[in-house]
């Protein structure tokens, strides 16, 4: 009975937080196709580990974002290994991606500015601004303190604004 209820809980959590997890991964990876794959991978892992989820230690959205971040880090690590193995051409090809990917209807300047940020900067913006997680939940997802999280957000936003201003001026 308990296992069935858990499965139902998972289905509900997946339905409610799929957009959030997907958006977070889009910001983190900067690539919609990769984000979709990682989102599916995240929910597969979540389903396998759903019995470990403890609501007392945070909501399902926070837990799913932690899992998504871990999945993305695994992806980045494997990508880095792959890039080391492959030719410089493949790396250059990867960087030549120009299509805006971060949001629906964002201004080109903001898209470009977001592309200029690192994944570390984009993830804190995604969690705090886009997903509107509170400081504590964001800090838990990132594995840092709340004050470090605030500092990181402030710097990311300053850099974003600077990049937006530079893009508009250009």
């Amino acid at each position: 009975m308990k296992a069935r209820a858990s499965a139902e809980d998972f289905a509900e959590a997946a339905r409610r937080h799929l957009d959030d997890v997907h958006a977070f991964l889009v910001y983190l990876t900067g690539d919609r196709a990769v984000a979709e794959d990682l989102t599916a991978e995240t929910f597969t892992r979540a389903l396998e580990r759903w019995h470990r989820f403890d609501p007392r230690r945070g909501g399902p959205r926070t837990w799913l974002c932690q899992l998504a971040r871990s999945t993305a880090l695994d992806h980045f690590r494997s990508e880095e290994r792959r890039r080391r193995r492959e030719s410089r051409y493949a790396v250059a090809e990867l960087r030549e991606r120009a299509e805006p990917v971060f949001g629906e209807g964002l201004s080109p300047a903001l898209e470009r500015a977001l592309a200029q940020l690192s994944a570390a900067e984009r993830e804190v913006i995604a969690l705090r601004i886009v997903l509107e997680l509170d400081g504590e939940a964001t800090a838990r997802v990132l594995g840092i303190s709340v004050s470090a999280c605030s500092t990181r957000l402030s710097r990311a936003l300053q850099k974003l604004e600077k990049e937006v201003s530079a893009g508009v001026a250009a």
Partner: protein
Amino acid sequence: MSPLELVDDRFEQVARELRAGKPTAPAQLRERVESLSPPPARWAPPSLRRLAPAVALSVLAASLGVAAVVGVVHSGSKSGSRVEVFRAARSPAPMTESHGEPVPLPLGQALDEKQRALPHAAGRLQQYDASLTLRVRDTDELSRRTQQAMRVTRTLGGYVASASFDIPGRRGTSALVLRVPIDRVQRALAQFSGYGTLLSQRISVRDLQQRADAQSSRITALRRGIAALERRLEGSLPTNERDRLERLLRIEKRRLVAQQKRLRATVRRAELARVALTLVTPRSKATAAPSRLDRTLDDAGSVLARELQILLYALIVAAPLLVLGGLALVAARTQRSRSDRRLLERS
């Protein structure tokens, strides 16, 4: 507090635009996620966070269980240390010993005054050792009987070699070591036996006559040898031979003196019997026999204390390894966190 309230006004417009343009999951992805089915149930090791309290609780329960079982089982057998001490003082059958061979006597026989002590053989040298344990009524009686025993000993021409009088609270004890002329030891033992209830009696008689005879023979031989040497020295002898004989004479005389001392000691030992008289008061009823509950608690407590000792020992031994392991874990996590951060900054 809304997260946006933390954002500076300068970023308000950017934040609003970002939220408005939040990417949504495509329908294809939604279908993909909704079609996920639970994986087949398979055994997975429980997480350390859940395992640790369970293991700790199991160990605690096992410890308490062992302590309880030991406590209950041992309490029924009345084999606690206090009881054992009590029985040891009461139960030994009186023993007598003759010529070094201990011979047990039935308690009834020991209480028969006529057979209470082995008489020493008149005309023979014997070492006579007696040990008596008697229970007296109370501490007043203990004190009175102790003084009486000392007085009797002196009256019989003996002396008190040592005396110890102790009333620690539960049970009073008086331990006397008396030296009594051997021809009067029967009278002394007869009197001491009347001081209370006989709890134990041990008498040993060792024949010293043979030893004394041997020592006497040796003395006679030494004297003969000395006389012979002295006769030889009276005549004219070469200087070397005289020196040698004189040296030999001195040695023999020293041997004679030592042998005479030994003989005197043997005779003295045979003159005075050694009597160890122990008087005890009964235990108070409140403390004589602990209840079963007390014994259970005592035993369980001692098992728990032992378990705590073992646990403490294990902790002390394992502590350096645990600390090192913890430090390694923290270092690995920190390193991993830094590595993740760098990876995300590069991406």
